[in-house]
């Protein structure tokens, strides 16, 4: 019956005979599926957005720094300041196999302290200066504009006076048509050759578009920091449990620096992986919520269809009686009503999907250039759409059963008498 063209012609002619009512019914389900599509698309967009925010940074990375002790231990008083040393890096790497990269970092300007004055010709400004190892880009990616490069091992080995500057530094210290690569800038009292310009990426934490990176070894000489390390950026292997690694790192550092194991304040840390998991959980929750809300709205819409069909069956009692007098079997009548229900559900569903897709495309176009709002490429996975369509077919059939049963529960003779 479903595959006869005639069946569909019949259904089409009966659903189009009361256009206003059909339209309103269709809007009910259309609205449901529209909400479903836009909500889950938006949730996905948010999810993608978060992912983009984090894609610059290894998702299982953390930062570890030191503070003052709060518990007396091994004869040390409280309030002792702990200093991370370069040697700690080696110890950590050997003791914790889950650690993939460790980048010891020093900085001037961030976390208190004056930013160094950077001079070039007559222009000058204050910018944060970081002493870095090349491995830092394995933890937090740095995009370098064409023609330049980031720091490398040779720079470290020879204590080269080279630097990577930020977009803003370039804008503020150099002329617009000037390529800074190869030129020299003065950091405090030493001249550094510019070897690269890094592209600023939103969401990089405390770093900004004016930051200047110089080799760790050069930094050490310049500011006389010796073996001292400001903080550690650590990336664990992808399959490692970051929270566990964080605990281990802290334990090893406490060991090295004779800090009481129960001292919670001596060593500070910021676990990106943990934050990322939370954010991911949030967007998962959002997706789930949109799924529930969307399906509930579809439900409401389909129930609306059932309602309207009930009224329609009541109105068409006489017509259905005539059809049965002319030889329509109860099953044919039932089938027709159910198919009408499914047809209405599907048509409105497909319209809703199209409308939802258009709105998502519109939102996507509108947020294309917005970088500070985590929203990228809102899409609805195909299985969700197919799932929604299946749900609609099933619900449409089930809800259609009620008016269909009602249509055949009246004897044709009574139906014909109906005025």
């Amino acid at each position, binding site marked *: 019956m479903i595959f006869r063209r005639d069946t569909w012609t*019949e259904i089409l002619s009966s659903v189009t005979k009361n256009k206003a009512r059909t339209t309103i019914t269709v809007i009910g389900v259309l609205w449901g599926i529209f909400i479903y599509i836009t909500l889950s698309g938006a949730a996905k967009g948010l999810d993608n957005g978060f992912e983009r925010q984090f894609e610059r940074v290894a998702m299982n990375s953390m930062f570890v720094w030191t503070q003052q002790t709060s518990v007396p231990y091994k004869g040390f008083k409280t309030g002792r300041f702990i200093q991370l040393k370069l040697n700690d890096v080696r110890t950590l790497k050997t003791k914790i196999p889950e650690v993939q990269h460790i980048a010891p970092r020093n900085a001037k300007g961030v976390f208190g302290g004056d930013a160094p004055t950077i001079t070039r010709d007559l222009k000058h400004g204050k910018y944060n200066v970081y002493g870095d190892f090349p491995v830092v880009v394995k933890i937090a990616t740095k995009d370098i504009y064409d023609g330049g490069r980031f720091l490398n091992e040779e720079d470290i080995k020879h204590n080269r006076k080279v630097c990577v500057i930020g977009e803003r530094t370039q804008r503020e210290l150099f002329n617009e048509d000037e390529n800074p690569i190869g030129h020299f800038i003065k950091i405090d009292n030493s001249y550094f050759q510019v070897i690269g310009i890094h592209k600023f990426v939103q969401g990089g934490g405390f770093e900004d578009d004016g930051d200047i990176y110089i080799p760790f070894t050069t930094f050490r000489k310049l500011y006389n920091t010796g073996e001292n390390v400001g903080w550690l950026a650590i990336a664990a292997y992808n399959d490692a449990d970051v929270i566990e690694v964080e605990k281990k790192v802290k334990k090893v550092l406490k060991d090295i620096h004779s800090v009481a194991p129960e001292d919670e304040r001596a060593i500070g840390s910021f676990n990106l992986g943990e934050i990322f998991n939370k954010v991911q959980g949030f967007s998962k929750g959002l997706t789930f919520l949109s799924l529930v809300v969307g399906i509930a709205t579809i439900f409401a819409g389909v129930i609306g269809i059932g309602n309207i069909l009930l009224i329609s069956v009541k109105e068409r009692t006489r017509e259905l009686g*005539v*059809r049965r*007098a*002319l*030889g329509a079997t109860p099953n*044919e009548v039932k089938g027709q009503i159910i198919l009408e229900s499914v047809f209405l559900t599907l048509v409105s569903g497909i319209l809703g999907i199209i409308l939802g897709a258009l709105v998502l495309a519109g939102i996507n176009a509108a947020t294309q250039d917005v970088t500070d709002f985590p929203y990228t490429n809102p899409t609805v996975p195909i299985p969700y759409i197919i799932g929604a369509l299946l749900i609609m077919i099933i619900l449409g059939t089930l809800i259609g059963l009620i008016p269909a049963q009602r249509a055949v529960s009246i004897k*044709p003779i009574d139906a*014909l008498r109906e005025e």
Partner: protein
Amino acid sequence: MIVIKDLHKSYKMGSNVLHVLKGINFNVEEGEMVAIMGSSGSGKSTLLNIVGMLDLLDTGSYTLDGVPIVNLNETKAAKYRNKFLGFIFQSFNLINYKTALENVALPLYYQRVPKKERDEKAMQYLTKVGLANWATHLPSELSGGQKQRVAIARALAAQPKVLLADEPTGALDSTTSYEVMQLLQEINDEGKTLLVVTHEEDIAKMCKRIVQLKDGVIIEDKKVNQVRASEYV
């Protein structure tokens, strides 16, 4: 063609039982045109409904074209109706959102006749009732007489054994009534068996046989000289 023996039918109305048909014995031969007359409440419509398989008999037997009509469920009744019977109603009962042609083709649709063949046949019957030019019109665009003629075409479309007409002229003025009766007589002339329920004397006289019902029994069953409707038109 129709053989009815000792037919009883009663309805329950709350606590009362209404005995509508009290032992009807009634035969119709092929090619007959029978008027069933009686005042309202005489049981004539109930008889027609049972003959039309729209209603079930309580006791007795009913044979249509040699087929005993027993154990009717709705599906079986629908099939029989479609195959054996054509209905003509007082209020036409055309489907208002379908054109004249589609209405006529509807019984063929339930016979699973392909669309093209269906439309051809329907057109053929519409031509027969003189409404070929109105094929694409909706019932609301037709006059009462035209509607009844479409209904007659529809009743004929499935090539039934028997046409059942329930007050076919009840909603029409007398001129139109005679036109419709003329059409029914022509159909009967071609050999189709017709059963016409009416309470109008002049309509009944246009049939070949009049059966009088009163209080659920046949009080008179006589052959009459048919008055040709064409005399009035």
